[in-house]
């Protein structure tokens, strides 16, 4: 088989997919919301999203972070979570779901007036961990909680 032809075909397909995505408003141009880290939110892999959000440093597992989420979620579209930490000088809390199409769900930037606890609701594609990454005093810490997602609410 003529390999160069294959490559051109592939390249063409990738380009047209991108154009469609941009047209549908999927890809938000960086210039519109300067503060919104499009690179991190558009990443489809966990490590790429983490690198784009908080830099290359690997987060260290910490017992000072608790991730509260249900053991079993009957509806993956609405999963409550609570991330709480006793770490000092918390700058940000990011929440990831590794199996989602876009692993980065949300990131919270905290001022020093804040108590270091955030509650919200996220979507989960399937059974997975909810991963929290906390930036404290310039360093990264992480904790996670497994959530079993049973679509249809049959109790799995």
């Amino acid at each position, binding site marked *: 088989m003529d390999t160069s032809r294959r490559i051109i075909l592939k390249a063409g397909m990738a380009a047209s997919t991108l154009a469609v995505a941009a047209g549908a408003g999927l890809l938000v141009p960086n210039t519109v919301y300067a*503060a919104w880290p499009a690179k991190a939110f558009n990443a489809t892999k966990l490590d790429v999203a983490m690198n784009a959000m908080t830099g290359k440093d690997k987060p260290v597992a910490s017992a000072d972070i608790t991730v509260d989420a249900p053991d079993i979620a009957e509806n993956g579209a609405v999963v409550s979570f609570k991330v709480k930490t006793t770490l000092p000088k918390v700058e940000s809390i990011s929440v990831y779901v590794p199996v989602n199409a876009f692993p980065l769900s949300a990131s919270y930037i905290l001022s020093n007036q804040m108590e270091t606890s955030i509650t919200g609701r996220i979507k989960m594609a399937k059974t997975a961990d909810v991963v929290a990454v906390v930036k404290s005093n310039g360093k990264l810490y992480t904790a996670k909680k497994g959530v079993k997602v049973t679509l249809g609410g049959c109790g799995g």
Partner: protein
Amino acid sequence: MARKMKIRAWDNGKNTSIKAIIFHPMETGLRKDKKTGKKIPGHYITEVNCEHNGKNILTCLWGPGVSKNPFLSFDFNGAKKGDSVKISWVDNQGKKGGSTAKIS
């Protein structure tokens, strides 16, 4: 937007608690319309700003992975009864919204 967002802010004895819900579809851009087979364009909140007396206390950066009609709850220090709390948001289509509440 059919319904306006709701904010509750109250003194919990130790500090101030906030609970807020924003009515928003939070469309991921990945779902397909069952009738036409076309992708439904993504429509989700990207940024939420929370202010206490005009000073930023919390910025939320959200992606399509946040649930429909997003809920947000947190506690913060340094406020007293009667102070105002403002929460405003912007989505990926440039739409904006927000509301204010007095701490009770």
